[in-house]
């Protein structure tokens, strides 16, 4: 007997993100970054994304301590994982901004799955958010 799948065949995906902020990731700053108002019908979706980011983001040094205990060359590691972003890391350090990284997964829920598979880079005066590194 042969099974034939007629729907899309999917596999899991993950996207690494990097977030640079002046302070904590505040809701209104995040809403300004993505371009929604609080009364927007989209706000529950972006609020859920924000909760997800807060739960998954860790400071960049902590992240690399876990994964690359042997290396302390943070810029090289960031360059490998987020090409083109290393200069932003240098500037962020000079200005005392906070740098976080993390991973979004397509296996968790519909909202995280969407933002995991979409690809974007957003920046305003308070936040830089890069989620271009998607691995399908």
């Amino acid at each position, binding site marked *: 007997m042969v099974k034939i799948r007629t729907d899309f065949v999917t596999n899991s995906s993950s996207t690494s993100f990097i977030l640079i902020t002046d302070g904590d990731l505040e809701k209104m700053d995040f809403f300004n970054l993505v*371009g*929604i108002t609080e009364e*927007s*019908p*989209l706000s529950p979706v972006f609020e859920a994304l924000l909760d997800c980011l807060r739960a998954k983001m860790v400071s960049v040094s902590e992240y690399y301590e876990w994964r690359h205990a042997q290396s302390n060359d943070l810029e090289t590691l960031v360059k490998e994982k987020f090409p083109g972003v290393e200069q932003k890391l240098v500037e962020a350090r000079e200005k005392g901004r906070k740098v976080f990284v993390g991973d979004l997964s397509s296996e968790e829920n519909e909202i995280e799955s*969407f933002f995991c598979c979409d690809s974007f880079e957003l920046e305003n005066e308070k936040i830089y958010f890069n989620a271009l590194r998607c691995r399908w």
Partner: protein
Amino acid sequence: MIVRIDDKDKGFGTKDEYFVILNRGCRKSDFIRAARVVAGSYAEELMERIYDCLVTYAVDIREEYQKYYSDEYPDLETFLYWKYDVDRATIAEIMENLKAGDFLGYGSVYSGGDYVIGQFTISDTGLKMVNRVFDKLQEADGEDQN
């Protein structure tokens, strides 16, 4: 509003197919305005992609019926039942919400080729969000008429 037609109990349709009911005068810019997003933002781009996914590539059912099938089927309901294999309950839901000047579209969320937005738009969460935007559109229509 969006009517998804993947109800397994009804035994028809696939996960990506839907009907969309929209005031014929509604443009993409109205849809985006109803979403209360900032011009030039990521959220605005998202709404443009959702509009294209649901409306731009949808088949105009009323036009199709009038042009090619009105001799064969006595009314739109019968056309939907026999041509599109839609069950009576879904037809009733569509007809209840369809006003004289409305566009009735039919399509697959993957027709435009944006798989990521299609998959999200037809999901339970995405559909709830999109129907909230349609509710805002209706509110705006109501205000215009008053």
